[in-house]
């Protein structure tokens, strides 16, 4: 699905440089949930941003479905990779329904009634159809996030990336999000997220990469058992990993 080989990223400021990713190797496998975990500043968000082409200027190979991400047209990119931001970034001047229909309407390829039907289906899937006429400021954090998920899914991406998906959620919304993620898998969508919410990570992952100081220092895969000894991950999560 998405495979990164020797991904490095350096931020250059006026008088200094900061290496945020150091030769990172990872793979986000099809129809599985991949978690990038670690403390703040470990490089998780930067890595996801590279995958969504929000951050460019990295070195190394980033392949999506065995094609270099850099060779994707904008249209190919947005129909392959969806991104849900930490702060959701819904468009405040549009209703929930308009937020969902805006991108496809702008693209002007799909018929308007098909766009509307798709938006209704997705809002129903995330339990937000009854809020279709509301504006983002009238929704709670969890509701906004579900709208952001529906909005991203409108373009039918094969992989959906989440940056710190639980950071703005209460415990109830967090457990609802775990259900939504599993629902996405059931619909054939690959999921990857960056988080340091230990309980959420322990409940929703098939593969975990532990990052520290821009490097992956440990990994764990539920199906293939331990890829390494995963002791660092267990220590970070403070819970034993189940198989």
């Amino acid at each position, binding site marked *: 699905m998405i495979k990164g080989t020797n991904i490095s990223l350096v931020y250059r400021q006026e008088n200094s440089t900061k290496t945020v990713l150091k030769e990172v190797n990872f793979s986000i496998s099809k129809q599985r949930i991949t978690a990038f975990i670690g403390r703040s500043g470990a490089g998780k968000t930067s890595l996801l941003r590279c995958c*969504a082409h*929000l951050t460019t200027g990295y070195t190394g190979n980033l392949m999506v479905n065995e094609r270099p991400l850099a060779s994707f047209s*904008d*249209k190919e*990119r*947005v129909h392959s*990779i*969806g*991104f849900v*931001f930490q*702060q959701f*970034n*819904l*468009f*405040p*001047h*549009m209703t929930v329904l308009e937020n969902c229909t*805006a*991108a496809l309407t*702008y*693209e002007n390829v799909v018929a308007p009634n098909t766009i509307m039907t798709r938006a209704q289906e997705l809002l129903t899937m995330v339990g937000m159809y009854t809020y279709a006429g*509301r*504006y983002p*400021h*009238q929704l709670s954090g969890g509701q906004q996030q579900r709208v952001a998920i529906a*909005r*991203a899914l409108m*373009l039918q991406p094969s992989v959906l990336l989440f940056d710190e998906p639980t950071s703005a959620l209460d415990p109830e919304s967090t457990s609802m999000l775990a259900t939504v993620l599993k629902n996405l898998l059931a619909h054939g969508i690959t999921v990857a997220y960056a988080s340091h919410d230990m309980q959420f990570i322990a409940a929703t992952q098939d593969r975990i990469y532990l990052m520290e100081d821009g490097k992956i220092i440990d990994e764990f895969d539920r199906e293939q058992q331990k890829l390494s000894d995963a002791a660092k991950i267990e220590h970070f999560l403070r819970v034993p990993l189940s198989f």
Partner: protein
Amino acid sequence: MNPLLQLFITGTLTTLGVALGGLCIGMTLGCIAGILSCRRIASPLVARAIQVYVFVMQGTPLYVQLLLMIYALPLLWHGQINPLTAGIITIGLNSIAYVAQIVRGGINGIPAGQWEAAYVLGYSSVGTLWYIILPQMMRSVLPALINETISLVKETSIMGAVGIIELTKVARDTVSRTLEPQWYLAAALLYLAITGLLGLIAQRIERKFEYDKGH
């Protein structure tokens, strides 16, 4: 019709004409300059040029700009310029500087996340600006743009100094003839009527952009 009343109507229409002409120039080119100088889009050279323009226009009196436009600029082609045309252009050029500042500040105030959200949804830069950024910006800059419009109407009152028969000049000429200073009050009331009407129109427009209130 009473010739005095006719004079005041002509003066008011001239004031409105100059203001409207200046507003068209100021709003159109000011918005373009504001967009071109915002953080996300500006090229250093263009941004610098706009910065210098704003510095010059905001740092010199409108009256001096008007005198330069009427008496100095035509020397370039050894000709003349119609005072009314010069007045409209001057007030428009002056307004560009203020509108550009307002628009630039409005765009820079939109969180970077909105640009990024548009990017991951496939919007081009122009599409992002048009459908995502400008509608949000309008809501925040509208009060400032309304203030600029009202200021612009009031600033037309100096046009009389170069012979344009606008409202203030009509009042001044009438007082000179009749020695009745209450005609200044008439002019003031007419300015109030114009700016009050603008305020009402502005309120209606503002309500259209208030997506975060009263639902």
